[in-house]
């Protein structure tokens, strides 16, 4: 007892009693296992319920392959575009003062608060065959809804905030001084952006891009509305998974779900790898 009071007297003011520490760690571990790890493990278990052969064979299915291809293509379109828009928006918001700035920030956040289904419906209303614009586009041979452009638009709407949201706090925290220094040294605006601004925000940008990518590949609601769920044509991975599941093709559904999960894990792995590789620069830019 006296030993315990002794050690308690010399505890650093920011650490907690061992009991509190273990409870906190326990709750966190239990939460992660129950809510994240167990369901993910279940997906893989279901996928492999009839062995590797069945799982791999179900992925060789024409619909599954087309879904994987479509999802990767959509991500390849939506992510770079949203990264560009996100950088532009964060730049405008943090470096300039202008009218309607608060409104712009609200607009950027809008996709977070609007249900994806509503977003999908908006696109159908704007570009559907019954609308003026949509009718004209279809007549020209460029359908938006129930086709690739619609899926890309819906995905971009839903994933728009990720990059901008990651960048804005980092860019606010950064003072203008480094950029001004580059200007006085004779650098053009573009050069300043490329050699000073971008390197300073690259980790936030990477993180934003990865989140954006994960969401772009996983988006269901908005895409479900605009895609028309045409098998082998407009059905992305999440849509195909749902259709297969509804048809009791559980091995096929869970195998595809496992692939989707692996894609997400791959992006996380990529991020960790990059962080390890550039650890010296990372610490150089964070330590003060």
């Amino acid at each position, binding site marked *: 007892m006296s030993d315990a009071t002794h050690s308690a007297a010399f505890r650093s003011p920011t650490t907690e009693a061992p009991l509190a520490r273990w409870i906190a760690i326990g709750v966190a571990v239990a939460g992660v296992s129950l809510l994240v790890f167990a369901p993910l493990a279940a997906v893989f278990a279901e996928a492999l319920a009839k062995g590797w052969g069945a799982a791999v064979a179900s992925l060789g299915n024409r619909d599954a392959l087309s879904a994987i291809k479509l999802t990767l293509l959509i991500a390849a379109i939506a992510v770079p575009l949203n990264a560009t828009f996100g950088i532009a928006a964060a730049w405008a918001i943090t470096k300039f003062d202008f009218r309607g700035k608060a409104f712009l920030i609200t607009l950027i956040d809008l996709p977070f608060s609007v249900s994806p289904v509503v977003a999908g419906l908006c696109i159908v209303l704007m570009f559907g065959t019954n609308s003026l614009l949509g009718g004209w586009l279809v007549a020209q041979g460029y359908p938006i809804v129930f086709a690739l452009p619609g899926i890309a638009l819906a995905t971009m709407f839903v994933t728009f905030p990720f990059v901008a949201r990651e960048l804005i706090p980092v860019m606010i925290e950064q003072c203008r001084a*480094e950029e001004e*220094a580059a*200007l*006085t*040294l004779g650098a053009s605006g573009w050069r300043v952006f490329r*050699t000073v601004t971008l390197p300073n925000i690259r980790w936030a940008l990477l993180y934003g891009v990865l989140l954006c990518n994960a969401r772009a590949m996983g988006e269901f609601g908005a895409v479900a509305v605009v895609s028309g769920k045409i098998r082998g044509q407009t059905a992305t991975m999440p849509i195909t998974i749902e259709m297969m599941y509804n048809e009791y093709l559980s091995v096929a559904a869970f195998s595809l779900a496992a692939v989707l999960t692996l894609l997400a894990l791959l992006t996380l792995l990529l991020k960790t790898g990059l962080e390890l590789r550039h650890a010296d620069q990372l610490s*150089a830019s964070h330590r003060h």
Partner: protein
Amino acid sequence: MHIEIDEIAKSFGATAALHPVSLSIPSGALVALLGPSGSGKTTLLRILGGLEFPTSGRVRFDGQDATGLSVQDRRAGFVFQSYALFRHMTVFENIAYGLRARPRASRPPQAEISRRVTKLLELIQLPEIGPRYPTQLSGGQRQRVALARALAIEPRMLLLDEPFGALDAKVRKELRQGLRDIHDETGLTTIFVTHDQDEAMELADKVVVMSMGRIEQVGRPQDIRTRPATPFVRDFISA
């Protein structure tokens, strides 16, 4: 280079940071802009460097109007208050930045850049620190690197914003002499902003005392000490 400030005023929205001020700085002078915070000294320095545009008035370099000259074309070596070194670049790359940023036609070849950076590192008496990152340097070393980076562009003038503000007293004294030496060696017109009267009096040939966006007095340090022109100057230097 001779710098002439002619009736320069600057307001941010409704607040006037500078009332029309005029000042002539002869070529090769070492001038201190001295005043409390909010006196407009940093604004004036930033206008000279092209980082701020005056609301009215003209700036002339060697008799030529430079009011509208872009920050890049001014070739003003600017040392920022917290030095603003590029955190993600080595000291070498920091100093080479201005040379690499030149248009292709006037950009020196790699070997020449390397030679010049080495020479500048010797000038600031830190020949070994090229491969290090700014976070691995002490405050005094950072200040000297910032100075070397500003000198690398072969500037026409040297502008320093509170160059000793972030340093402890001992390093401060050393670096004062360092700046004096570099000024004498390069002969560059040098203007530095400070709120520390000892620093201004000890280092500058000419001190410009500022308050509330106005110039209170311009003179040699001993003249300002012995004959303060306004009650503000008397108060400020006796503090």
